[in-house]
């Protein structure tokens, strides 16, 4: 096992402007086999300039790894303007201590990311596999598509310990999302596969869904007026109403399932 500790230097975020650092080049699969000096020389974008990782982060490497699976990256410091943590990651593990910025775990295909804090918008965007755990809240567009695409998340598992913003799982086609808190407007928008469970409340869930499954364990505010009640159902011993929708997409396409209390 190898642990790569990357601590963002304080001065990076000490100016009037908090310019984001973009770290899509710092995933276990991209760093495996590199020594400390080599990791320090990996380029990351800071605004419109590329900098050496070592210029922006304190880098410490412990242990050795034979493959990406054996690499764990621990990110520390003020990560609230560190974007693309684990973006495109294939294997291994990332632990981010604190709040992280946008696109955490975007397009990841494998491995595990744990965020010990909140994650800003587009966490898990177009995720294909692996696991993303956000212990705090998630911003908008969690596990959604990129603009214009018709496919969002296709695989993997995402757990949010707190609340999630608007459009959770938009255009989701596969995989699983669990929100332990509330979800804002339009969870599961355009969903056509996969499963979303919201333990708290949701607003207008399931709009334009054509397949997949959403379960809201808390209250639903503003139920979509274009869903059809199908039957009563029991899940984990509790009574739910099962709705089919969204009929606004035409009856032929409306194969989405929405369980509400």
């Amino acid at each position, binding site marked *: 096992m190898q642990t790569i500790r990357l601590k963002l230097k304080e001065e990076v975020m000490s100016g009037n402007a908090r310019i984001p650092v973009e770290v899509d080049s710092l995933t276990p699969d991209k760093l495996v086999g590199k020594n400390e000096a080599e990791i320090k020389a990996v380029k990351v974008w800071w605004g419109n300039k590329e900098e050496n990782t070592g210029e922006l982060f304190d880098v410490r490497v412990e242990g050795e790894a034979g493959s990406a699976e054996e690499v764990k990256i621990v990110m520390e410091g003020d990560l609230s303007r560190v974007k693309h943590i684990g973006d495109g990651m294939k294997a291994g593990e990332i632990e981010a201590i604190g709040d992280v910025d946008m696109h955490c775990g975007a397009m990841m295909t494998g491995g595990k990311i744990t965020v010990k804090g909140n994650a800003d918008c587009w966490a898990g965007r177009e995720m294909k596999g692996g696991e993303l755990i956000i212990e705090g809240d998630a911003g908008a567009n969690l596990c959604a598509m*990129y603009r214009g695409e*018709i496919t969002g998340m296709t695989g993997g598992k995402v757990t949010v310990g707190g609340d999630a913003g608007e459009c959770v799982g938009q255009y989701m086609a596969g995989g699983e999302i669990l929100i332990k808190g509330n979800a804002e407007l339009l969870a599961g928008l355009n969903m056509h596969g996969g499963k979303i469970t919201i333990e708290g409340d949701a607003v207008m869930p399931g709009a334009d869904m054509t397949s997949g499954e959403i379960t809201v364990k808390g209250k639903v505010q503003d139920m979509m007026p274009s869903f059809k009640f199908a039957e009563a159902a029991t899940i984990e011993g509790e009574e739910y109403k099962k709705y089919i929708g969204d009929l606004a997409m035409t009856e032929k396409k409306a194969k989405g399932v929405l369980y509400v209390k």
Partner: protein
Amino acid sequence: MAEGELLIKNGVVYDPINGVNGEKKDICIRDGKVVESVKNPKVIDAGGRVVMPGGVDIHSHIAGGKVNSGRLFRPEDGRRGLEAKTKVCRMQSGYSVPNTFATGYRYAKMGYTFVMEAAMPPLAARHTHEEIVDIPILDNAALPLIDNNWMTLDYVKSGDIDLLTAYIAWIIKATKGYGVKIVNPGGTEAWAWGKNCDLNDTVPYFDVTPAEIVKSLGEANEKFEMPHSIHVHTNMLGHPGNFGVTMATYDLVKGIKPSKDRQVLHATHTQFHSYGGTNWGDFESKADAIADYVNKNEHVTIDIGSIILGDTTTMTADGPMEYSLYQITGRKWTNHDVELETGSGITPFLYSGKSPVNTIQWAIGQELALLVKDPWKVALTTDHPNAGPFIGYPILISMLMSKKRREESAADMHSAIYDRAALPSIDREYDLYEIAIITRGMTAKALGLHEHGKGHLGVGADGDVAIYDMSPEERDAGKIQKAFLNTKYTIKGGEVVVKDGEVVATPAGKTYFVTPECDDTLTEEMLKKLKDKFEHYYSVTFNNYPVQDAYVPNPYEIKAPMRG
């Protein structure tokens, strides 16, 4: 145009307009033009590689309102072609709908130096020209849409061919256009009410038929010595069984005498119009019937509009066709009807080799190229981006040149190709001379551009040259494809613009436009009616309508006198 002298030696030259078929031959260029000899030139050693005139694309959608709406609504396509700026090049984006810069660079890398923008809505002509100015390297022109215009419909109805002639002269001048473009005649006007027209249907409220429109515009076009014939997208595009309508349309203009030595009608993206069957279930290729017609007649040329498998962005002034396509896919759909003139529709589409219909479509385009015997009657296109992006041309070239490659591809596709298409049974393989014809010689001639220095390397021609990194003996389809994607050199007006597959210079292209010279008395009479249309029905004024000179900073004017 570059000043100075250039000598390209040791090339194997394919210059069909001048009958040069694979001859080892020097090419001399001075001040941007091909000359007999040079004295103190910069020398490029082609080293036995294939040399052709710069490519001329007869039909492509690269600039203007609907192209840009295609880019705008497809950020997901944009990210499939991102390239950072370099010291020479601006940023690039897009695959099926590349930005203007990428459009110029990628065409130039394939050895093309002229592209015809195939559909310009007159009311939005300024937009087309603004984009064209931003496309580096390529010389260009644009065809204004003239067939669904209320002025045209009125004159066709009243049978005033002379006044129709005055109108087309005016609108081609007002738009700085190149010729007469016809797209689903009558059908686009009908679409403004959500309807469509077959060839002999009556256009709602206008009491004319598409057949009458095509015939009248065919006659009117030949009143001038226009470099190009009418350029026609026939009715019922994309409908199973449409091949009959296609041939009936060709027949309409059979008796018209061309004003110059060329076709009377150029039929575009013919693949989409060569369909048999009665529905998508019994859909089949009728490329053989269309090719047979073209083989037996001299008044029609075609371009193939061949499919490139994969995702693309379809776009056409044929609004109802795009609506049908969107109804099949349910994907995003943009429509933009243009008052008194035309319209457009745009929707993304995935051509899949697993689909029987797409597979047959894929076969049809290539069948057309292979079954039309005389390559001077057929042009290579993908109707970019409708049947696929232009960046797929090298794939098509390799297919046409290699039966083996076609067989390998067919084996991976839906088996319908063996039952309902002719492609697997065709043995013909194109040679490089024929490829040069369908990508530059024929296209330049059909557009009348050969008289203006395009599509050949005779003395006086533009110094536009493509040097492909392959020997004439190359038979490996993969290597052929690679060579046609990125030239060893592309030379534009005597200046090296691509070297070893990289863009090294980005001069501005010229815009070719035609000035039909119409009789003043006729024009005056026509203007009375036209001004009334502006007064009551257009939403812009007559004086703000024509494209100002500022939009064509690099003009090349071709005068078209009235036929004597």
